[in-house]
């Protein structure tokens, strides 16, 4: 019995290869159509991951800025010295309180001068304007960095309320609106990504369904003859699954190579420099992403075979 099973299995592979060989045109066609569909899938995945990555860079901006009240501005040198010391004491007081909060990673104090420099560095477009303003007019700032796993809307608004109630603090800024919008956008990106991937999955099942159905239609005559001389359904179906499995894997590899080549051409011609200018940093698919698409590709090939061959038996 076992030797017969092995014989069958051996036969199934032989038949699958024979089928592939005897219908090269059809198989190349199916292969390229499937590659095409997988390529589109991979391409969308690549685009999606890069867009998502870009979005994420906003979310990772896990900081909060506190503006301290300016003390009375006296024009004498001595008063100025005292004022600086006084400010430092207030600041370190506040900083110590903040450091006790759960989830705070780092706290940084910017004096008027430092905040002036910071501004100039981060707003190059209006640098020329800022340059004309005296540093003393700039606010004293405390910047808080949070642990990224602590960041949530509720947590941040909690911290926000606690800070607002403190003395010497003028106002707290954490671009709540921005955060909200970006979170919403990321949410939608996730949903759209999911929908697009589902859509591509279905269309790729459809593509392999049709490709294989066409191959079957061409072989319909042969299948009928085989059944007339006593072939079981398995004898006909299993080689077909092997065939489409091999096809899917090849198509997937082909599409991956194509995408990789295009990606590298893109890098080679430094098109990414232009994107970097918009603070977009492009990345290739991780092996995990590739694995997911591979799985989806294989699944769609097998599902396609299943649906297309079901009718005939």
């Amino acid at each position: 019995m076992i030797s017969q099973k092995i014989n069958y299995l051996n036969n199934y592979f032989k038949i699958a290869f024979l089928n592939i060989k005897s219908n090269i045109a059809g198989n190349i066609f199916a292969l390229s159509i499937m590659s095409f569909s997988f390529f589109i899938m991979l391409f969308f995945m690549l685009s999606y991951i890069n867009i998502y990555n870009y979005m994420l860079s906003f979310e990772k901006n896990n900081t909060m800025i506190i503006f301290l009240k300016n003390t009375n501005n006296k024009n004498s040198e001595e008063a100025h010295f005292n004022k600086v010391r006084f400010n430092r004491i207030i600041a370190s007081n506040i900083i110590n309180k903040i450091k006790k909060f759960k989830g705070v990673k780092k706290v940084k104090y910017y004096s008027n001068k430092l905040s002036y420099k910071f501004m100039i560095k981060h707003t190059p477009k209006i640098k020329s304007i800022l340059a004309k303003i005296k540093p003393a007019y700039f606010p004293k700032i405390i910047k808080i960095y949070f642990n990224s796993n602590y960041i949530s809307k509720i947590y941040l608004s909690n911290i926000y309320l606690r800070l607002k109630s403190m003395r010497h603090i003028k106002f707290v800024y954490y671009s709540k609106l921005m955060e909200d919008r970006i979170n919403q956008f990321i949410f939608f990106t996730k949903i759209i990504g999911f929908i697009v991937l589902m859509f591509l999955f279905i269309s790729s099942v459809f593509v392999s369904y049709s490709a294989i159905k066409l191959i079957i239609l061409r072989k319909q005559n042969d299948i009928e003859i085989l059944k007339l001389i006593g072939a079981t359904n398995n004898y006909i179906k299993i080689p077909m699954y092997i065939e489409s499995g091999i096809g899917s894997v090849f198509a997937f590899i082909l599409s991956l190579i194509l995408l990789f080549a295009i990606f590298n051409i893109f890098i080679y011609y430094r098109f990414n420099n232009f994107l970097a200018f918009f603070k977009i940093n492009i990345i290739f698919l991780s092996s995990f992403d590739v694995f997911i698409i591979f799985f989806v590709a294989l699944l769609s090939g097998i599902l396609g075979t299943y649906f297309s061959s079901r009718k005939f038996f």
Partner: protein
Amino acid sequence: MIEFTHVYKSYDKNYILRDLSFNIYKGEFVFITGPSGAGKTTTMKMVIAMEKPTHGQINVFNEDISAIQPKQIPFLRRKIGFVFQDFKLLINRTVFQNVALGLEISGVSGSIITKNVTEILKAVELYQTKDEYPLSLSGGEQQRVAIARALVQNPSVLIADEPTGNLDFETASIIIDILKSFNNKGTTMIIATHDKTLIELGRARVIDITKN
């Protein structure tokens, strides 16, 4: 062994066969005759469950064919060799591969396949064309490939539909001799034909389906 009892068959309400009853016993050699369109092919197709009778009962190997499970059909067909009127060869397999098909689907191992196929191809005088494809064979040669494919499995029943329609008298005689020798070894033979010379040559029981 094969038993038709009051079988009726219709396509789209036109009855082709009416109240057909006959019995074929193990080891017999039987001719089925009737004019073109009489239902010879249909009758034979019903034996391997390619067609279902509209009424009536068909027993093959003491089993009721109309009640057969779809899963069992392949195993029934492996016991019955069938030579089709239109040959039904696979055009993208060679003569050898076509003949080997029946053994392959039964899971016979490669070496036995080679031996048996070679033997039968030599018997029907086609060994020299074993690597040709069916489309490059003459009509008579294709017919002999179909016969070889049916015989190579050493079936307990062989059904041949017009097996000599494309053969000249000499080749037909050779084929009949081969069929006779298989019959002598125990294979039940059922041959559909309207060739009177063949029937004379066969000297066997004749079932005329138009007379039932």
